[in-house]
C-alpha cells in the first residue's frame, strides 16, 4: 500500500519565529532515535535551514533496556543563519524514558521544552535509571516547560487498526509518533519522511502504514492537544545558491574517494577491516561496484593495509580505512608503503582512545600516532577534514598529493565528523580539477629502468607490472638511490632518509598558504584542526562580534604545515590551540616553531561546545 503524501492542514495555532533551534531526541539504543534524528535533519535541510548534527550513542548495540548505559541521542541544530556546530544548549529535549531524561536534561536550557513519554516512568523504569523519586512529580523539572505525553497509549491507539501488526511492532513506531509531534512543533513538512518510510519498508506494507499513521498522529496530537498553544518556525537560511543535499561525513568521504578515482582515471580499491567509526566507508564503497570499485574485507587490519599496498603496486587507487586501534596494527605496513614510495590513502577516523577506548565517541588523539607511530624515520603527509562535507574535498586533495609525490597520505577524520551531517552544495563534476597520473614505459634506447630515479617533485616513477622492460623489485630493505637495489651503505642510508624527508617537506610549496579569519596580527590567534572547526569558528566569530581582538586559523595540512605558518604565529601575542586531546598539535607547533602556545584540551568523548572555546578566548584576552 503506497504512502499517502497528502499535505497536512496548516496549523491553526499561532507560530513564533526563531533564528534557530537545537533539539535532542534521546531514548534507548533500540528506540530508533538515530533514525528519527536523521529524518529530522533531512527534513530541516530540505526546509532550507542550515543544519549540523551530533549523534551520540553507546558502543553496545542493545544495552540493557532502560538503563543509563543504553541511552542513545541525536542532536540537531537548525537555523536560518550560517551554523557550524550542533549547538551547545538544547532548546528542546525529547526523552523516551527516565534514563534518557537524567542523562540529557542538564543540557536543556532553563525554560526549554521537555517532552517525555510519561508512561515510561513506572517504578521499574525509575529503578533502572537509578532514580529514587519520580522526576515528573518531585519538582526537579520545574524550571523546564514539561510536556508529559502518554506516548505508548497514543501511539498504540493510532496504529491499532493496522492488520498484521503485533503489539511489539506497534510499540516500535513510537519514535515516529514523537517525530510527528516535533514536526508539528517546528512546522516541518512530513513528505520527505513519508517517502523515506516507503523506500525503507516498502516490502512490508503494514510497517509502512504503521509508521505513517504514527507520524501523522504525532503531528495531529500537537495540533489538537491543549498542552501546546503555539508552534515555532525557523525560516530557510541564506546559503550560497545551488542545489544542496544533506551529507554525512563518512558518506562524503566515500564519495570523495570515488570522485578522486574518476578524476585520476583509476580504479578504486579499498582493503579494510570493520571498525567503529570507520566501517561505513567500507560499507559505502562496497555498494559502488558499478563505479569499478573493488573492496576486500580483509582478515585483519594488517592485511587490509598490505592489500592496499599490493593494489597500489598493481596501479589502482588504493585506500584503507580504519580508526586508531587499527592504525596501530597497520603501522609496520605503513612504513613499508612509505619506503616503497607508492601512492595510497590511509584513513584514520579517530575515536576515543587509548586502547579500545571509547569506540563510539569522538576524539583527536591520534595526531601524534599518525605523525610518528612507525619505526625509523618515516615521514608521511597528513591532511585533516574539518566537517562532513569537507571530507569530499579532502579525499581528492589527499589523492592529488599521494600521486604527485608518490607517497601514502594519511587522511584524518573523527567520529564527530564521520557521523555528523550538514547541507552540501552539490558540485559540478565537470568543474572538479583532474588528478593527472602517469606511468612510465621502457625507454626506446634500451636504457635500464631506474625505479628510484626522481622527478622535480622528488617522486619516483609509478611503473606497473605488465609493462615490458620495467621489471623491478621493491622491498622494505634500504635501497640504493636511483637503482633501488638493496644497499647497506651508510652514506646512502643517510641520503635516502634525507630525500624521503625532503620529498614530504616540499609539499609545503604546493599547498595553499594558511589563511586567517580576522585581523592578520593582534592579540590572539586561535589555531585549530579537524573536527573542532565548527566550535572554533563560531566561538571566534562571537568574540569578534563582541569587539575582541581574536583571529582564527584552521589547519587542513598537518604534515607538512603550510609554509607561512611560522610567520603567521609570530604576528600574534598569544596562540590558543583547542584540541580534543591533551595537546598534540600544541606539541608539534611548539617543537617546530619554538613558540609557546596555550592549549584548551578536553577528552570527554564529546566535541567542544562553542562556549567552552569562547570562554577560553575571553579568559586569555581578559
Amino acid at each position, binding site marked *: 500500500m503506497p504512502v499517502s503524501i497528502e499535505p497536512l492542514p496548516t496549523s491553526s495555532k499561532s507560530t513564533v519565529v526563531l533564528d534557530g533551534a537545537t533539539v535532542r531526541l534521546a531514548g534507548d539504543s533500540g528506540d530508533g532515535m538515530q533514525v528519527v534524528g536523521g529524518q529530522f535533519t533531512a527534513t530541516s535541510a530540505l526546509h532550507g535551514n542550515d543544519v549540523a548534527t551530533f549523534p551520540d550513542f553507546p558502543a553496545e548495540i542493545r544495552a540493557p533496556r532502560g538503563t543509563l548505559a543504553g541511552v542513545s541521542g541525536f542532536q540537531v541544530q537548525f537555523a536560518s543563519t550560517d551554523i557550524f556546530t550542533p549547538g551547545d544548549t538544547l532548546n528542546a529535549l525529547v526523552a523516551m524514558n527516565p534514563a534518557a531524561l537524567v542523562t540529557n536534561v542538564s543540557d536543556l536550557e532553563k525554560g526549554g521544552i521537555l517532552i517525555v513519554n510519561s508512561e515510561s516512568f513506572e517504578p521499574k523504569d525509575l529503578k533502572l535509571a537509578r532514580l529514587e523519586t519520580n522526576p515528573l512529580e518531585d519538582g526537579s523539572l520545574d524550571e523546564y516547560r514539561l510536556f508529559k505525553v502518554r506516548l505508548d497509549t497514543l501511539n498504540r491507539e493510532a496504529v491499532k487498526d493496522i492488520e498484521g501488526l503485533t503489539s511489539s511492532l506497534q510499540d516500535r513506531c513510537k519514535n515516529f509518533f514523537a517525530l510527528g509531534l516535533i514536526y508539528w512543533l517546528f512546522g516541518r513538512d512530513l513528505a520527505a519522511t513519508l517517502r523515506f518510510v516507503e523506500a525503507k519498508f516498502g516490502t512490508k506494507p503494514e510497517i509502512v502504514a504503521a509508521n505513517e499513521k504514527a507520524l501523522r498522529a504525532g503531528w495531529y496530537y500537537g495540533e489538537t492537544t491543549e498542552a501546546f498553544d503555539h508552534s515555532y518556525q525557523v525560516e*530557510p537560511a541564506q546559503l550560497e545558491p545551488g542545489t544542496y543535499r544533506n551529507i554525512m561525513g563518512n558518506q562524503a568521504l566515500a564519495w570523495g574517494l570515488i570522485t578522486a578515482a574518476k578524476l585520476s582515471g583509476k580504479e578504486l580499491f579499498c582493503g579494510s577491516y570493520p571498525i567503529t567509526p570507520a566501517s561505513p566507508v567500507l560499507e559505502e564503497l562496497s555498494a559502488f561496484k*558499478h563505479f569499478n570499485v*573493488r573492496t576486500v574485507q580483509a582478515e585483519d587490519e594488517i592485511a587490509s593495509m*598490505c592489500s592496499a*599496498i*599490493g593494489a597500489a603496486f598493481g596501479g589502482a587507487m588504493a585506500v584503507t580505512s580504519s580508526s586508531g586501534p587499527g592504525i596501530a596494527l597497520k603501522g609496520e605496513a605503513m612504513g613499508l608503503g612509505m619506503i616503497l614510495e607508492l601512492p595510497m590513502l590511509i584513513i584514520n577516523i579517530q575515536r576515543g582512545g587509548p586502547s579500545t577506548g571509547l569506540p563510539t565517541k569522538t576524539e583527536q588523539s591520534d595526531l601524534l600516532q599518525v605523525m610518528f607511530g612507525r619505526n625509523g624515520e618515516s615521514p608521511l603527509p597528513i591532511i585533516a577534514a574539518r566537517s562532513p562535507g569537507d571530507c569530499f574535498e579532502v579525499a581528492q586533495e589527499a589523492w592529488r598529493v599521494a600521486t604527485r609525490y608518490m607517497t601514502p597520505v594519511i587522511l584524518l577524520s573523527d567520529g564527530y565528523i564521520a557521523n555528523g551531517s550538514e547541507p552540501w552544495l552539490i558540485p559540478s563534476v565537470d568543474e572538479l580539477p583532474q588528478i593527472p597520473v602517469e606511468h612510465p614505459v621502457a625507454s626506446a634506447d634500451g636504457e635500464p629502468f631506474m625505479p628510484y630515479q626522481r622527478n622535480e617533485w622528488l617522486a619516483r616513477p609509478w611503473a606497473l607490472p605488465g609493462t615490458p622492460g*620495467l621489471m623491478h*623489485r621493491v622491498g*622494505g630493505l634500504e635501497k640504493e638511490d636511483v637503482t633501488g637495489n638493496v644497499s647497506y651503505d651508510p652514506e646512502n642510508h643517510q641520503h635516502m632518509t634525507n630525500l624521503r624527508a625532503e620529498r614530504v617537506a616540499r609539499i609545503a610549496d604546493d599547498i595553499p598558504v594558511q589563511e586567517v579569519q580576522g585581523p592578520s596580527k593582534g592579540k590572539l590567534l586561535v589555531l585549530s584542526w579537524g573536527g573542532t572547526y565548527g566550535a572554533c569558528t563560531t566561538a571566534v566569530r562571537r568574540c569578534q562580534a563582541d569587539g575582541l581582538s581574536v583571529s582564527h586559523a584552521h589547519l587542513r595540512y598537518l604534515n607538512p604545515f603550510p609554509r607561512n605558518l611560522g610567520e603567521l604565529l609570530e604576528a600574534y601575542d598569544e596562540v590558543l590551540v583547542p584540541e580534543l586531546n591533551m595537546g598534540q598539535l600544541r606539541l608539534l607547533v611548539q617543537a617546530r616553531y619554538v613558540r609557546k602556545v596555550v592549549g584548551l584540551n578536553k577528552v570527554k568523548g564529546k566535541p567542544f561546545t562553542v562556549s567552552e572555546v569562547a570562554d577560553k578566548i575571553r579568559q586569555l584576552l581578559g
Partner: protein
Amino acid sequence: MRTELPVLKAADFASDQDVRWCPGCGDYSILAQMKKTLPSLGMPREKIVFISGIGCSSRFPYYMNTYGIHSIHGRAPAFATGLKAVRPDLMVWVITGDGDGLSIGGNHLMHAIRRNLDINIVMFNNRIYGLTKGQYSPTSPIGKKTKTSPMGAIDNPLHPLSIAIGCEATFVARSVDTHIKHLGGVLQRAAEHRGTSFVEVYQNCNVFNDGAFDYVTDRQTKSDQTIELEHGAPLVFGKNRERGIRLNGLEPEIVELGDRYSESDLLVHDEAAVEPSLAYLLSRLRYEDGFPEPIGVLRAVDAPRYEEVLNTQVTAARDQRGEGDLTSLFNSGETWTVT
C-alpha cells in the same frame, strides 16, 4: 600480424643481483627449478610478480628478473590478495617460509587459501628460523634443541599441508629441494592450477638445521620413507615397491604386499576428490609416526577464484545499474535548490 613471443630461457629470469644465501642452502635449488620452470609457462616476465615476506626464503624476489615485492614479515599473502584483486592478468607467486607463513603470517595464509585467488604459494620449510640465526620454528619437532629452546621445544608443531587442506586449499603439494625433477614438475603443476596453489618444499638449512630431511633425501632410505603420489594409483612404496598403505576403517596402516594383501587392497590416490578428508589423511602420514611421507600432489580441485567472482560482481553491478555516474549519484535522494 602475428607476434611471436620471445622464447625465454632460465637465464632470462635471473636478475642482476648477487644471490646471498649460505653456500649449500636448499634455497639455491628451488631458485634454479623456478627459473627452469617459468619459461615453459609461456608467461612473459613482465606479467609475473613474486611477493615474499621476511626470512631467508623471502629474498627470493630479488633474484628473479620479474616484478617483485620483498614485503614485511608474514604478510605476503595479503599483498598478493590486493594485487590480484585489481590485476587478475598477472601471475602472482608468494614465497614464504615456515616461520613467515605459519607463525607471524598464519592468519594471512589461511585467508588467502580460503579465498582461492589464482596465486601460487611456495613455502620453504626448513623447520628452523634461519635469518635470525637458529631459533625453533612452528614446524620444529617437539624436543628440538635450539637457542631459544635449550631444553627442547615444547610447542606441538604445525604441519603445513594439514593447515592448507584444513583451509580447503584447491591445490596442495609437497616436494623436496634436492628432488630437482620432481620439484620442477610440482612447481609447474602449481602454476597451471587455477586457484590458490600451496606447495611445501622440504628445504635443508645446512647451517642451523642440517639434515632435518635426511630421511627423505638419503638415497638408502628415501624410497622407504617417502611415497610418491600418483593420481589414480594405489599407495605403494619401498625400494622394491613391496609395501603399501591401506585404510583400516578410518586409520591408515602399512601393509606388506604379497600373500595377504595385493595392490587392489590399497588406498588409491585421488587428487581430484572434492571432499578433502583423504588428502588430509595423507597430510598426516608422518615419518615420526612410522609412515612414509607423501611427495607430490595431494589435492587438485576446481573452485571459483576470488578475483573472478569479484569481477563478475563488478560487471553485474554495471549491467544492472549502468556505469556509475557521479552527477546522478550526488543528486540521488532528497535535494533542494537555493536561488
